Structure formats: structure tokens, C-alpha cells
């Protein structure tokens, strides 16, 4: 039995994804042709041997449950431990930017009480990565840490695009708080960027929650830093591929990253690959005149036209004499003849009629919402 239980913080809305995150929780946003954002955190947890994982869900949780099903694909349909759906609190607009809201965890306090594991691993729900958490947990144990924060070293100039927390770290790896990118001027070439993954002793987490029960919108990270004098906080570096989806540009760019062999290989191959729900689809059929370049295509499609630099989900139909470039086409879209699409994102079930032309710019892709008919 693993000595660590997981919590994925999925009670988040962003509203920054131009409608893609309107019809579904952020955790359930489709990614890479057949995945959802949630799959990445959940797979790494399961691959690292965690057998008890709780997912904090927002009130529109149905797409998350649809994806999780029985937890079977993730080895979590178990008698001891398993997958727990933890209803999050209903939040207003104010707190969209916080990742680990203590109220969300407090509402599910029994989850922490019922399992006698030593550590809790918390993780955000809108990040793309494949990590072996065992290394971070072993590091946490060796240092007798109270809290271990996982970070990725980023170049100073990257900080502008990756909004978030930079850790203040001592040379021995201790964390003394957070700073902004501006504060970190000059001193370092690389900045330790916190990637929303926390290892914390279970009893400490319970204490923190009880201590902050009265504070309306307290966040775990803030609470930890408020008490940094009493806690032994360490930072653990992650060196693999990492992307965070906060904007439609992040979404577009990190989908396109999958056209890179190394990224695909790191995420989707090997024993510890990212898992997702099994679908019973036939292979994709390419007809005589299909012309495909540098694209990722899921199963059950029927492709007669031309694709270049595209991410295509399952059961998509692309008719002949149609050219699609630099685009993300989600599940069950139906694209007619003589269509030209460039820098476009089509959500599920979009129908594009013959002769349509849609061209966006690289930094501002055209987003077509679910079930639109054009």
C-alpha cells in the first residue's frame, strides 16, 4: 500500500479558454486528440503507485465523471482506497486564481481522516507533464520535510508568459517564501517556478485546515508561507516537459508541442505513460487523395482532404479538396468539401459546410464552440 494519497484540485474555472472551458470544468478540457487535462495529473499519481486519489470537483462535474467512469482505466476501482470524487465548494468570481483552496479540502475532511497514509500529494488540474512522484516523495522523506514544493527551473524570460509563483530558495534547497519575477532580477539565470504540486504530511495538512477554517478564501500555499518559520519547506526540481494551460494560447501551443517526437515520447510511451479512457473505435481511414503532413490523428476518422500541423480527435470527417492547417479539431467534427481552415480550434461536434474559409492568426486562433454549424 502506498503511504501517500493524492488530491487533484479540479474545482477551477478559468474562463480564459474562449468558451472551451465554459461547457466543462477546466480539468475536463480535451487535449492532444484523445486526452483530457485531468488525465495528466491522475496518470502520474497512479503510475507513481498511489492507489487512493481524490478529485475535487466543481458543481458542473458531469464531464469529469464521464471521463473517470469507474476509475477502471486508472487502476482505481478498488476495495481499499480507489478513486474519490470530492465535491468542491461553490466559489464566486473572486478566487479564480487560487489553486489549493483550503475550503475545498475542508469540505472533504473525512477523506483525510479515513486514510492512515503519511503523506498527501496535491496537484493542479491544468498542467501537461509526466512525472515520477516517487522521487519527490523520497526526497521529502530524506529531508524530513514538512512540505515539499515541486518546481521547474525556467529561464528568466519565460516568466513573463508563465504567470505564477517563483520560489525563494536557499542553496540547500530550502524554500523561504515566494517572489515575483521582478524581484528575482539579475541574480539567477534560472528561476524556480512552482508547478502546483505539493507533498505535505497528512497530519500537518489537517492542522492547517483546522487552523484556517475561519479564513474565507485561504489558499494552502499562502497558509504554508505564513507559517514558514515553523515549517521545514523544501523545493524539488522537475526536469521534464511542462506546460500550464491558462489561456487559449497556452492551449494551442501545448497541443502543437505534441507534434514534437520527444514530447510525445515522454508523455505517451513507456510503462509510465499517460492513461485515458478506452474507446471502441475502428482505425482511421485515409482515402486515395488524403495528404497529411506533421499531424496527430486519433482513431475512427475518415480523412479525404489535406492536413498540415493539426491535432485531430476521434471520429472526425474531413471531405476531399479541403485544406486544414495549424488547427485543433475536436471529437466528431464534420468538415465538408472545399473548406480552408487555418489557425482554427473546433470544439466537439462542429459542422463546417462546403466552401467555408476560416483563417485565424498564429497568436489568436479562431475558436468555434461546441455543436456550432458553419
Amino acid at each position, binding site marked *: 500500500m502506498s503511504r501517500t494519497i493524492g488530491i487533484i484540485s479540479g474545482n477551477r474555472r478559468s474562463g480564459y479558454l474562449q468558451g472551451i472551458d465554459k461547457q466543462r470544468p477546466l480539468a475536463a478540457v480535451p487535449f492532444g486528440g484523445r486526452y483530457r487535462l485531468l488525465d495528466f495529473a491522475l496518470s502520474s499519481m497512479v503510475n507513481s503507485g498511489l492507489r487512493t486519489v481524490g478529485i475535487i470537483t466543481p458543481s458542473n462535474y458531469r464531464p469529469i465523471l464521464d471521463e473517470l467512469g469507474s476509475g477502471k482505466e486508472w487502476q482505481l476501482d478498488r476495495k481499499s482506497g480507489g478513486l474519490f470524487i470530492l465535491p468542491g465548494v461553490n466559489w464566486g468570481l473572486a478566487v479564480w486564481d487560487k489553486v489549493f483552496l483550503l475550503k475545498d479540502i475542508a469540505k472533504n475532511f473525512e477523506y483525510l481522516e479515513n486514510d492512515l497514509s503519511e503523506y498527501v500529494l496535491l496537484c493542479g488540474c491544468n498542467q501537461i507533464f509526466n512525472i515520477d512522484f516517487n522521487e519527490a516523495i523520497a526526497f521529502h522523506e530524506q529531508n524530513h520535510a514538512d512540505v515539499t514544493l515541486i518546481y521547474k527551473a525556467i529561464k528568466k524570460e519565460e516568466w513573463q508568459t508563465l504567470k505564477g509563483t517563483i520560489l525563494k530558495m536557499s542553496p540547500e534547497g530550502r524554500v523561504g517564501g515566494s517572489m515575483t519575477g521582478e524581484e528575482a532580477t539579475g541574480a539567477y539565470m534560472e528561476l524556480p517556478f512552482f508547478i502546483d504540486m505539493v507533498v505535505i504530511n497528512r497530519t500537518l495538512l489537517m492542522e492547517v485546515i483546522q487552523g484556517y477554517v475561519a479564513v474565507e478564501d485561504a489558499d494552502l500555499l499562502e497558509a504554508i508561507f505564513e507559517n514558514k518559520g515553523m515549517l521545514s519547506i523544501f523545493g524539488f526540481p522537475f526536469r521534464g516537459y511542462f506546460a500550464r494551460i491558462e489561456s487559449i494560447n497556452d492551449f494551442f501551443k501545448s497541443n502543437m508541442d505534441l507534434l514534437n517526437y520527444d514530447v510525445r515520447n515522454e508523455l505517451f510511451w513507456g510503462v509510465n505513460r499517460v492513461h485515458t479512457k478506452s474507446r471502441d473505435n475502428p482505425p482511421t*481511414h485515409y482515402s*486515395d487523395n488524403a495528404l497529411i503532413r506533421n499531424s496527430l490523428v486519433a482513431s475512427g476518422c475518415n480523412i479525404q482532404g489535406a492536413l498540415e500541423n493539426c491535432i485531430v480527435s476521434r471520429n472526425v470527417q474531413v471531405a476531399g479538396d479541403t485544406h486544414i492547417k495549424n488547427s485543433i479539431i475536436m471529437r466528431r467534427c464534420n468538415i465538408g468539401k472545399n473548406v480552408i481552415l487555418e489557425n482554427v480550434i473546433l470544439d466537439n461536434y462542429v459542422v463546417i459546410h462546403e466552401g467555408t474559409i476560416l483563417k485565424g492568426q498564429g497568436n489568436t486562433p479562431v475558436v468555434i464552440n461546441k455543436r456550432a454549424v458553419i
Partner: protein
Amino acid sequence: MHQRECIAMLLAGGQGSRLGYLTRRVAKPALSFGGKYRVIDFSLSNCANSNIDTVGVLTQYKPYALHSYIGSGGAWDLNDKFGGGVHILPPFVGEDGGSWYKGTADAIYHNIDFINFYNPIYVLIISGDHIYKMNYELLIRQHKNTGADVTVSAIEVAWEEASRFGIITPDATDRIIRFAEKPAQPDSNLASMGVYVFNWPVLKKALLEDQENPASDNDFGKNVLPMLLEQGKKLFVYKFNEYWVDVGTVQSYYQANMELLLPEPPLNIFGPGFKIFSNEEILPPHYIGPDARISNSLICNGCTVLGEVKNSILAPGVYIDEGVWVEDSIILSNTRIGNKSRIRKAIIGESVEIKANCSLGICTGDEHNRSLITCVEDNLTIFDGALIRAGENI
């Protein structure tokens, strides 16, 4: 307590020896088909789609791959928690020692206890070797309506092929008057599909009688059905008009796969409804590289195509390197074809590694071999620059 109206007994022990190298490592029902399927997916999905929730799978030859593939049957919605579901039935040792399954009827005979446990009214006997989509409910309905003891499902075959099959001669009411196993002079072109519905008491009695006959091969087609006809039992034929094929030879296996690439494939795996389920490994979407060229082909999840693929089927996880040219071929799962290798009209097994600059099935100077199929067995490694001639089997 556990009574079921009908349970299915699925014969999955076939070695498929006429498939040569393709079934050296696995039983025929575990063989890949159409890229992402295995042959047994069709009969198991038929059961699920026909509301048959209890299936005994009789295995014997190299069963490990099949057992792990079937698991508890959940992939076909057949993991019944209320006593039904898929049950794997290998040969076993009883108090009087063990015995292997001889003919098809012998295999069922050894599992009479299993059938008794469910005490069904009807027993459906099917084979795990055939590719077809069939709603067994219609067959069972006809069986009930005619009041038959046994109903044999049959399909019309070309007259010139009839002598390869068990041939059924019915009267005007579809009652069977003659059953001839591979007759030299067939008087009908209705071929048995190896799909039978029996009333369970009739089947049980027949199995016991057949065991007592030392001359019997304990085979349904050769022995049990002729014996029942002789006893005057009511055997009816159920005429099935859709796609059905026994992929019993390399040629028929190749052809049935290739028919999926026709503009109107005779077997519809693409439409909704009556879905064929399979126990797939989770793999990412396939990747098509900047200089790839694909035409009229089926590509599965997890493939990487950097070269040219024409009129071919790639099973999950196949890697086609740059400069490769594949035509009219079937490449099974997790096989890698190295830089600039050329492959024509071949069936390449699972997890094969073909290194660079190889040439398989390419005719240069031996054009008379063009129609021959080249086969490569599972798990082989073919080294740089190897030349495998059309029709070779390695």
C-alpha cells in the same frame, strides 16, 4: 438459482495450423484482424450485442495470450457480476486424471458440468475463428418458432467452394434432410457456419452417446449432427445472408483484411450500432510526419508514419521510418520498419523489427511470384539490407 435461457460455448482452441507462421505463437482466435481487432472480438461482441451474458470459452492451444486478452470479459461488457460473464474453460484434471479436448463435441462434453450449473434451455455453440457480425437473438427466435431440436446457421457459398464445407440440404420448410461434411458432389451450396443452437437436453444426450462410440472423432459436423439426423431429430437451418468468413488460410486472412479497404467494405466496422468491442491498449493518436504519404489505408492509434503507406493496414503502435515504402500489406502491432525498407504484399507479425534497407515481397525478375503473400513471424528481427522474396515465409 443461476438458470439462464441461453448460454454460449465458444470454441477457441483452434491452432489454425493452415495459417502457418501467423499462429505459431498464438491461437487463431487471438490473431490480429483489421488493425485493431483480434479474431475473437467478433464472436464475443456478437454475444454482447445479442444479450447473451454467459459465455464459456474453451481453450487449449497456447492459451496464455488469449486468456490475458479476454481477462474477465469487461472489454466486451461481458463481466457479469451476477454469476454470468465470460468463463475460460481449459482442459483439466478430474478424479480420473486429465484429458485434452479431441473434437469440438468432446470439448463441450468435458464441460457438461459447467453447462449444468446454469441449466439453460438452449446452448449456443460458436467458434472464435470467424469474422462476422450476427445477432444470435434472431437465430434463437427462429429456433423457438420452428420447435427445432437443433438449428444450424448456414450461409450460401460459391458452388465450386462447397466441397470445402459442411453442406446442408434442407427441405422446403428449412428442415435439414442431409448433412455432408466436405462432400465431393455437393447437392446444395448452403454451408454450415459452425454456429449451432441446441436444446440443452438434446445436446447433453447426444454428447453422452457420441462419447460411447469409439469410432467417433467427437466432432459436431462429422459425427454429432449426422447421428441426430439419423435419429430423426428436428434439425433446421437458419439462413444467414450477411458477411461471414473463416480466416482459415493465409490467403483468406489476407483477403478478408484487404476487403476493409474497398470503397464499400462488405464488413462494416465504421458505422454506429452493433459495435465490435476490443481490449485495446491505451495509445496516443497516430502521428503522420512531414514527408509521409498515405493513401487508402487504415492506421491505428500509436502509429508513427514517416514514409509512404499505400493500400495497407497498420495495427496499433507500428513505426514506419522515413523513406519506407509499404504497399498492399498488413503490419501487425508494435512492429518497426526501418529507413528505406520496401515491403509489398506482406503480412508482418507483431513486434517484428525490420532494420533499414530491407526488401520484402518485392519482385525483381521473379514476376510470376507477384501474387504470392510474404509472411514474417512475430518477434523476429530482420537485419539491414535483407532480401525476402515474394511468397517466402520466415
